[in-house]
């Protein structure tokens, strides 16, 4: 069973790679990712594609409400409920 801390740490690492503005900041899991210019709805979809292969999750069929993925914590919760 993968821990929530592991998922959060992986996401923080990934976002630091894809969002250079996030590199210097100590990203907290509740931070609103919309503060970063590079983070838009396509960025969320890109992150979901990465999460799929990284954590072997299945993204369900329904329309993805990307508003639900605007913090590391919310993404981590999504991963844990879809494994």
């Amino acid at each position, binding site marked *: 069973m993968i821990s929530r801390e592991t998922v959060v740490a992986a996401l923080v690492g990934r976002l630091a790679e894809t969002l250079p503005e996030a590199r210097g900041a100590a990203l907290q899991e509740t931070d609103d990712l919309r503060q970063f*210019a590079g983070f838009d709805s396509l960025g969320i979809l890109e992150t*979901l*594609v990465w999460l*799929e292969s990284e954590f072997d999750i299945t993204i369900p069929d329904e329309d*993805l409400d990307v508003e639900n993925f605007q913090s590391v914590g919310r993404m981590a919760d999504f991963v844990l409920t879809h494994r």
Partner: protein
Amino acid sequence: MADAGFFAAVRDGAGRSDDVALISGKRAWTYRELITSAEIFAGHLGRHPTTGLPVVVDVADAAVRAVVTLAADLAQLTVLHSDPGAPTDFGGLVVRDSATLPEPSEPPAVRTTDGGVELWTHTRAATHSLAGIPARSQIFLTSGSTGTPTGVVRPAATVLTDAHRIAAFMGYEQGLPGVVSTLAFHCYGFAYGIAAPLLHGTPIRHVPSRSIPSQLARAVREHGARTLVGLPFQFQLLAGTAAPLDFGELRMAVSSGAPLPPAAAGAITGRYDFALYNAYGSSETGALSAALSTGEQLPGEVGTPFPGVVPRLVPVDGVSGGGELQLRTDALAAGYTGTDGLLPLDFDGDWYRTGDLARIEDGGIRINGRLKNIINVAGKKVSPAEIERVLARHPAVTDVQVVAAPDDVRGQVPAARIVTSSGLTVAELLAWCQSRLAPHQMPRRVSFLDEIPRSAMGKPLKGPEPS
């Protein structure tokens, strides 16, 4: 039959009454259900004062959009397709489904639940005159080059011509399923996902336009789809997935709405058996051509024109080789919406001016850039697309955009925005350009970005130039 509208063409088309026509959300609609719902809603439209007003279709569900459009056609009314995510203030009889209802509900809305479809309507005062617009036209909003939405007026006959053209290209036929993940309120989304399949009996499953590759692959497998229409960003994500996905019996995928980068096309065709096409067209012209994308073609290649599309090139002062692409096509829009009525398209004699710069080589069209995007460097005209192509070929450049930057001496200079995969320097980039570009074409400002801002359609957004 010149008078055949959309409703009659679908009712008399290839789909049989009990065949599945569209699958949207959790519901599969047969032709009988679509036609019956449209007839009932047409009766509702007939009881409302709609003189001089279009039916503004502000619904999220693709099948419900089909119902409302069929109903408006049957009631001899003009339709305006609205983006439910960015509602227009265009006047008309606004039709909403539950997904697009404002909170609290906007009075005086009328609720109709007949025919298994639940719709709310209210009247918004006219903002545009329908003078000169043929009854039963469909109006599609396009951002155009200025960013201000403009209504492109497509008479029923041109919608049908375009739909038949697309069906022939896609191989749409009765009973052969397809999946569409695009925006049904856009001209091409409506044509690929609603009009063309409904005329030819092709059952189409609509999936949300924000679907990611694994969702697309699952929909294709479950539906037994042979064709897939998606947006460029989806194919870019597909090109980058860690492992190949299972697309079942898919034989053809089409990327539409903006150019698909050759690198993404190459990655996909290297992994999958289906044929990948990059489609070219506009709201004004409908579908024009499509290029088989293997990653080996030259940037800007959009293929040979579809039958019925006649291209020509008109030389442009200051642009060497090729010229402005002008067209004749029987699917051409009637014009644009205006406050006082229909406004004309941009013509050169009886040729429609696309505003695209192109070459035609071996019958194939290759787009070089936009006429209006030309950068005027001290009187010398420079195509940003030409510079973008040179920069994009640098191995460390992953994305690029060239815009005009104001310059005190030259009027304008090319400014490059670069996304790089490694620590590329300005000096290295300019050295690369020096042997490949004329001096007036050299980028005079270079900025490194994490990504080029793009619209939901994948088109670059022209923000302020780098300083």
